[in-house]
């Protein structure tokens, strides 16, 4: 297959360019908005904080927002690429593990029956819900002699997604309250979050990203199929388990910070395979860097669609994602 970047040095340069774009993305995310801020002021606000409104906006709103967009984008893209490897299905994404539906269900239940409110509390609930559902999907997908198979895990994910989505709607309809906050969460957004939502998720997202990179070599073998991987001496059960835990940390961390953001987990791995091929040792770092860039860019763009009102970035990615998804499907899932 012809990839855009062929040699290792080209790929290394591509990654370096990605890191530059990433830096530009972070700065842009802080600079652009209803109140434009000069990039010098960003520096000042951390070096010579003067308590001015601009400095406060940077530290409490813009910076957390940029960091959350970057972390969520990177997590979703890496989680997506791992899921596509485990399920051997190029259209797989974190939502397939029931992660978003489980997170949503826990939030709906928490606010309807236990009076939970606020994005920080939602973040914890979302993560627990995501981890719970993903574990359930994983367990159901592993029942039987042949262990975890792509088909079983896909079916289990689809079934539990449908199940938890129905339960969530049922709770929303029957509880008779209005859940503006919950509905807002459902769309997926990186705006209006405190820095502590980021700092709570950052450590395990960081660990999971490193783990994903260490797993890359083994993923290359696992994607050849269970029998071939075992024949090559791989303990596939451990590799699948490790990948499962990493997916839960990444996708769960992302949904806890930003709610369900669709399509990043599909689009980015696809584009990266087009850029660097199938070798996970390149795909993983590329997904992390360019996933962050995509969500940063989508978030900055979403501020200008109906300026000065903001569109949640979850809607933005869906608008970009649907045509892309149809495009992939029409090409028969080929990357």
């Amino acid at each position, binding site marked *: *297959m012809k990839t855009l970047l062929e040699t290792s040095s080209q790929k290394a340069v591509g990654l370096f360019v990605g890191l530059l774009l990433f830096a530009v993305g972070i700065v842009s995310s802080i600079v652009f908005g209803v109140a434009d801020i000069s990039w010098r002021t960003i520096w000042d606000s951390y070096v010579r904080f003067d308590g001015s409104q601009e400095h406060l906006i940077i530290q409490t709103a813009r910076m957390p927002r940029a960091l959350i967009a970057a972390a969520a984008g990177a997590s979703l893209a890496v989680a997506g690429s791992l899921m596509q490897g485990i399920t*051997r299905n*190029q259209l797989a994404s974190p939502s397939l593990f029931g992660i978003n539906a489980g997170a949503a269900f826990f939030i709906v239940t928490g606010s309807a029956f236990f009076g939970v409110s606020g994005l920080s509390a939602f973040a914890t609930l979302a993560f627990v819900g995501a981890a719970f559902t993903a574990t359930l999907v994983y367990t159901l997908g592993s029942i039987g*002699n042949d262990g975890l198979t792509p088909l079983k895990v896909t079916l289990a994910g689809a079934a539990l997604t449908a199940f938890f989505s129905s339960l969530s709607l049922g709770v929303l309809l029957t509880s008779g309250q209005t859940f503006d906050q919950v509905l807002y969460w459902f769309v997926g957004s990186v705006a209006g979050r405190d820095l502590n939502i980021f700092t709570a998720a950052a450590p395990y997202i960081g660990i999971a990203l490193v783990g994903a990179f260490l797993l890359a*070599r083994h993923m*290359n*073998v696992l*994607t*050849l*199929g269970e*029998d*071939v991987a*075992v*024949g*090559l*001496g*791989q*303990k596939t059960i451990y590799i699948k388990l490790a990948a499962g835990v990493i997916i839960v940390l990444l996708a769960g961390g992302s949904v806890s910070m930003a709610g369900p953001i669709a399509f990043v987990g599909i689009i980015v791995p696809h584009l990266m*395979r087009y850029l660097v*091929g*199938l*070798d996970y040792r390149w795909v993983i770092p590329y997904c992390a860097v360019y996933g962050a860039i995509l969500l940063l860019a989508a978030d900055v763009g979403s501020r200008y669609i109906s300026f000065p009102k903001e569109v949640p970035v979850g809607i933005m990615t869906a608008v970009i994602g649907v045509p892309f998804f149809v495009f992939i499907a029409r090409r028969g*899932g*080929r*990357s």
Partner: protein
Amino acid sequence: MSSIQAKNLTLSYGQKEIFNQLDLLVPSGQITVLIGSNGCGKSTLLRSLARLLKPQEGSILLDGTEIAKLSSKEIARRLAILPQGPLAPEGLTVHQLVKQGRYPYQSWLQQWTREDERMVNRALEVTHMKELSSLSIDSLSGGQRQRAWIAMTLAQNTPTILLDEPTTYLDMSHQIEILDLLFDLNGQEKRTIVMVLHDINLACRYADHIVAVKDGHIHAQGKPEVIMTEQLIREVFGMACQMTVDPIFGTPLCIPHGKGRSLKDSHSK
């Protein structure tokens, strides 16, 4: 020289018992072919020899050591298995596939050595895949695809190679191409080859040793010219036939009875 031996092997799939207390000694440095009708368990037996299926009882001995006591990577350095109908991810190139054959030699510290590079190049040369190595597997013909997979198992550099129906779904010229390749690997490099084949006549031509499997036991085994008789075909495949001699190779040739156009006045029933 390596040896594989099954001792007192009991295998089952789910509740269904396939083999009960089976013993088998694979002759080393030779080509062994497992034959038998569909569902007789020959693939199951091959998979268990390669530790893809855990036995209920009994053991597989690799060079005299129980494979249950060896690490999976250690086994992969001595024995390669090509499963039936392997499927490469779309877009994977031949070179990338063959490189994965070096997985059992790699670790956290030791990632890619000159030896790895040499083995990959050699595997590509032996299988005549050098010129195709930058192409993606899904763009190749069935025969080339199978050669790419065999190249991956060769990169493992194991004295023993197991193949589950390596010629299934290939047209006749590609079947011969694959079997010739395996024949040369055995002849020139003294690799032990064990495979499942459906074509009895090709089995007779290429095998040094045939193992005929029926209903979860080994019905007969030995040199094709000794064991392949009309009676054995009837007992193992439930098919009437006439055995004759291959006019080119002199190996046993099985002509099945049945219906069809006949240009002779009468033929034996």
